């Protein structure tokens, strides 16, 4: 497997040269494909369409800056462009959010979920919910789907040896971004709520244990692609600390997504916690495997 760390990006990262229009078009094409690959399941999910007209417009509005912050995280730390300035990262994030809105509107219209007869409010609400998900897909897709030789590329070992140790903050941001990327695919479905309502304490403990075990296997024991960049020995204490931080990031991401989709509304605290733990399994996979894949 090739990784493109530290290789020049297709985007004109250095002010010295400006990429041609053809190059940019190819990159947008990649972004669009990526956006659809990661978000198509949710464009075909009823609960997500419903979320548009069930959720308060303020909640949807709040989701825009939060998504923008996540995009900044993906683009800064997962975009494989260590030389990009924050301004460029911010411009890319604006473009991805804009593409997300456009793609979400187009697909919802083609699927007949948004029609010209609908009130503007309903259209905007539906498009916004899906746009958030598409935008994250566009960001990850742009960075991950690049396979062109112009970008160079390094073998994994070489990249790992030359790169500086990953920063703690960077890893935390990537863990949260990975957790959101995975967990958002199942969070809006009713299944999470059903499992959360039905699970007793032992089952939840089991789900939590399985989450931690999966996280440990991915990060420390299975030689997962990219794992050695993150793990530098340190023995059991380091493993436990890393695992705890990963699981904590996963739980925080789960809680945030569930709150956004209104899964906490009117629910008893115990049921909220149960849902967070249930979704935490998906989020932990994202925070461990997803993080390693997107970084």
């Amino acid at each position, binding site marked *: 497997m090739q990784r493109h760390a530290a290789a020049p990006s297709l985007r*004109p990262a250095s*002010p*010295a*040269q*400006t*990429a*041609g*229009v053809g190059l*940019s*078009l190819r990159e*947008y094409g990649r972004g669009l494909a990526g956006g659809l690959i990661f978000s198509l399941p949710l464009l075909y999910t009823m609960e997500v369409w*419903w979320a548009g*007209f*069930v959720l*308060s*417009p*303020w909640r*949807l*509005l709040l989701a*825009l800056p939060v998504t923008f912050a996540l995009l900044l995280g993906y683009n800064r730390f997962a975009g494989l462009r260590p030389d990009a*300035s*924050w*301004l*460029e990262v911010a*411009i890319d994030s*604006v*473009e*991805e*959010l*804009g*593409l997300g*809105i*456009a793609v979400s509107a187009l697909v919802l219209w083609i699927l007949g979920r948004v029609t010209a007869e*609908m*009130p*503007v*409010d*309903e259209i*905007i*609400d539906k*498009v*916004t919910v899906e*746009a958030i998900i598409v935008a994250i897909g566009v960001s990850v897709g742009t960075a991950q789907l690049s396979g062109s030789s112009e970008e160079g590329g390094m073998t994994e070992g070489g990249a790992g040896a030359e790169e500086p140790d990953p920063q703690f903050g960077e890893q935390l941001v990537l863990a949260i971004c990975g957790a959101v990327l995975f967990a958002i695919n199942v969070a809006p479905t009713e299944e999470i709520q059903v499992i959360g309502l039905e699970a007793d304490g032992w089952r939840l403990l089991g789900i939590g244990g399985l989450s931690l075990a999966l996280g440990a296997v991915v990060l420390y024991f299975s030689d997962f692609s990219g794992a050695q960049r993150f793990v530098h020995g340190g023995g059991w204490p380091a493993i436990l600390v890393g695992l705890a931080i990963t699981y904590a990031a996963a739980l925080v991401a789960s809680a945030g997504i569930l709150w956004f989709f209104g899964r906490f509304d009117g629910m008893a605290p115990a049921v909220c916690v149960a849902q967070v733990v249930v979704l935490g399994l998906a989020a932990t996979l994202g925070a461990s495997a997803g993080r390693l894949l997107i970084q």
Partner: protein
Amino acid sequence: MTVPHKNWLEWAVFAVSAALIVCVAALLAYEGITLERTPPLLEVRVGAPQPSGDQVIVPVEVSNDGGATAELVQVEVTMERGAEVERAMFELDFVPRGSSAEGWAMFSQAPGDGDRISARVIGFAQP
């Protein structure tokens, strides 16, 4: 910070994207300001009956002018033929705030002169 070098296409995409985001944010804010936190306000409108096989179907439109979405909206439609009353009903999954949804009621006979068709919402759930 220096302005990044981008070609016209990239600047165009950026400009359109920024405009889209501003529009969506503005519309959401406008919706938030104008939306009153009132329960669903459902109104029913009965359309013209038309034949369907050997039965008759009547379109019924349910609109929601309240501030919240109604779920599982049950609509009862009655046709009064003199002393005889025939009932039909259907359920709508959702009637979003500010929107309308349509259903059809089926009756065994076409309405005659003086017969009356009326519809009302008999209940709904709050999502």
